[in-house]
């Protein structure tokens, strides 16, 4: 498709308002709803593919961000949250109600490949079945699990039996199908899987013929935990533990943003600047670890790069500890602001940040010398692990993974929040589409984050003393309106981190759904790795920078 055609297509789509979309969808629409972030269209359960195809091809909604499933007393519901890579602020929710006795609706997998895992998750946790889905198995819980834990009638104390046969001794009877190929089991305890991921790889000689990620070894029921907590204070500690690579504040912001928009809370400007600054510090810490471990994955001799990255992370963690009191699990944001002001003496704190910022360019140069300019590293990473922009889009990839495939998409700019739109920084993209580009994007983003932090420090230093409001007035018990629904995302360390909340008028959310960027990014691994050599599979996995706490939630 030429660039002109693409332009025409998006402009055609982007004219459509809610009524235009309703007209486009015609009689598939049963009803209209109003979500706080987007218009919602209730459609027939057997028209899912038709509706999504129309929305994608004729209205420009090319990004299936999230699929939320939930059970009401009288029905099951799947919500497809659609938006567009070109214009993030255009959103639409497609609501598919299904019968409580026989919850079956049509699968969206043929239209958006990312729906594959999302629908499996919905089946696993809530119990909705998707007709036409290629492989509807449990994804997070063990295959032998009884019941669907987020459905209304689930009894949590039921005994369960979990088998160990999934990975029998891989040395015996390890030939799948004809003997040309070999089955190789990687994980769930393996140093290169960054946690407890399990990959079932089928090799043809040295090449990967098929790889299937098996997740769920760290499914800690985050959604249930959030549904059991009250909005004001009890939920905030959990986001720190989704993406735990020091990206805590970015995750907290995702929850804070969704809940603040849901309950219509203001955030003082001063608090926004503090949030922006501290969140970018987290991004730096997270990208540093991604870089260090990736270097280790590519070549075990890159221990020096890893150790340097850890040392620099220590510096960031020190600053964050001064600010929040914790090294990793900050719990610093509050709805309507932050927990407390910057530490006294402020000059010392700013001095510490400035020292770190002064140190960064030199450190970055060193990393480039050690890693990206290293010939061995380049041989391993340039042109391996190719992910084309079209495939990336259909898998719903976001964050550095998408930006390294040339997709210019960053929520900090496209759907501004916090203080980002007042500051001067750039969205980094690369069009290498390979492992190398993905690392490069992260390393260059660290520089941009440093720019943002510097501007925030300048602002905070001169902030008038009598105007340092850190929290707006928030009612003690927060009870958003009944049946208010919202889906809001922020740019987390790994990509678009979205939260869907439905309120039922009480002080706890009725449904809390987390859209994790890693979940979608990891799903693209088979597309990236198939046909590559087995070491490149490991490199590709490292370059996706997944964190299992967020994949499994």
């Amino acid at each position, binding site marked *: 498709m030429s660039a002109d055609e693409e332009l025409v297509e998006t402009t055609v789509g982007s004219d459509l308002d809610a009524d235009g979309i309703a007209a486009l969808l015609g009689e598939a629409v049963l009803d209209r709803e109003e979500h706080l972030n987007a218009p919602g269209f209730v459609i027939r359960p057997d028209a899912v593919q038709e509706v999504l195809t129309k929305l994608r091809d004729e209205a420009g909604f090319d990004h299936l961000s999230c699929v939320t499933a939930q059970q009401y007393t009288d029905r099951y519901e799947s919500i497809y949250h659609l938006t567009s890579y070109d214009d993030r602020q255009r959103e639409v929710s497609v609501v598919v109600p299904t019968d409580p006795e026989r919850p079956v609706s049509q699968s969206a997998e043929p239209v958006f490949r990312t729906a594959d895992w999302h629908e499996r998750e919905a089946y696993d946790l809530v119990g909705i079945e998707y007709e036409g889905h290629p492989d509807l198995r449990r994804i997070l819980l063990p295959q032998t699990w009884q019941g669907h834990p987020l459905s209304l009638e689930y009894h949590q104390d039921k005994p369960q039996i979990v088998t160990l046969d999934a990975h029998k001794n891989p040395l015996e009877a390890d030939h799948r199908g004809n003997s040309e190929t070999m089955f190789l089991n990687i994980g769930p305890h393996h140093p290169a899987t960054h946690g407890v991921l399990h990959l079932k790889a089928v090799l043809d000689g040295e090449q990967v013929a098929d790889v299937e990620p098996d997740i769920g070894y760290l499914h800690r029921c985050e959604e249930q935990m959030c549904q059991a907590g009250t909005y004001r204070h009890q939920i905030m500690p959990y986001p720190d*533990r989704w993406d735990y690579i020091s990206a805590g504040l970015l995750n907290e912001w995702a929850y804070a943003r969704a809940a603040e928009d849901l309950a219509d809370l203001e955030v003082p400007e001063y608090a926004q600047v503090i949030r922006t600054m501290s969140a970018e510090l987290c991004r730096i810490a997270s990208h540093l670890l991604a870089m260090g471990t990736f270097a280790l994955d590519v070549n075990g001799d890159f221990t020096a790069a890893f150790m340097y990255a850890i040392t620099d992370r220590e510096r960031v963690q020190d600053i964050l500890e001064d600010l929040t009191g914790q090294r990793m699990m900050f719990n610093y944001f509050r709805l309507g602001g932050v927990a407390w002001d910057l530490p006294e003496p402020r000059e010392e704190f700013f001095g510490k940040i400035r020292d770190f910022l002064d140190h960064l360019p030199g450190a970055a140069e060193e990393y480039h010398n050690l890693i990206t300019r290293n010939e061995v590293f380049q041989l391993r990473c340039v042109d391996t692990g190719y992910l084309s922009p079209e495939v990336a889009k259909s898998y719903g990839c976001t964050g550095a993974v998408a930006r390294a495939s040339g997709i210019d998409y960053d929520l900090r700019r496209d759907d501004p929040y916090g203080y980002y739109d007042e500051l001067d920084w750039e969205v980094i993209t690369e069009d290498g589409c390979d492992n190398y580009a993905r690392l490069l994007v992260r390393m260059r983003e660290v520089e941009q984050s440093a720019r943002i932090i510097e501007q925030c420090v300048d602002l905070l230093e001169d902030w008038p003393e009598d105007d340092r409001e850190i929290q707006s007035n928030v009612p003690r018990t927060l009870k958003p309106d009944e049946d208010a629904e919202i889906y809001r995302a922020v740019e987390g360390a790994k990509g678009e981190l979205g939260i869907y909340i439905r309120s039922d008028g009480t002080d706890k959310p009725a449904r809390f759904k987390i859209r994790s960027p890693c979940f979608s990014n990891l799903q693209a691994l088979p597309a990236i790795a198939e046909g590559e050599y087995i070491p490149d599979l490991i490199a590709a996995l490292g370059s996706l920078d997944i964190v299992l706490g967020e994949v499994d939630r």
Partner: protein
Amino acid sequence: MSSDNPRDAIVESTAPLTDTRDARMGAGADDRFNSPLREAFGTQPFILTKFDKFMNWVRGSSMFLLQFGIACCSIEMMHTFGVKHDVDRFGAGVPRASPRQADCIIVPGTIVSKFAPRMKRVYDQMPEPKFVVGMGSCTISGGPFQEGYNVVKGAEEVIPVDIHVPGCPPRPEALVYGIAKLQERVANGESSPVVVKPYELEQFGDLDRDELVEKLADEIDEETLVMRYNWADSP
């Protein structure tokens, strides 16, 4: 002679023994094998200690840890291995990638039902004697996720734990302290008694034939290893 009092030869002059030895070897003999130790101990160059005491000392001073990451705590564990905290200074800094080479496993994170049998497998593969450090609240009780439908309420449900390091996550200093405590205990010859674990891996065919087992009977082979979770009875 009481063993409390050293032999005369040790406290007194060693000259008589040296003389005897020289007399036996004859003049001009090669003294290559004479060391200051032999000089001190005379013709019986022995240090007497209990073999297991010696082994305990060795074990405690050189611990190979398993490189085993589960959840958030493993990031702090990496920092403990990293430059600033450097647990290597305490003789416990060689992370091994294979359980077959490790003495000690740090369990850094939340254990969920799908992972527990795998973790038991890893633990079983470690050679004896083996030690376990539980890192973080999750390995004590399930931590912040204790109420979760899928979360095992503490590592002790699956494998025996020697040292618990509390915190969410514990700071690297705390983990270093925990490891040092473990080394101290190992050097003193203590190790926790291996408790009977509630969730052993069993063969499916051996389970009581209750409703759940009947239901799964068609799906699961009798020989398959399974772990049974009874959430109602866990702490």
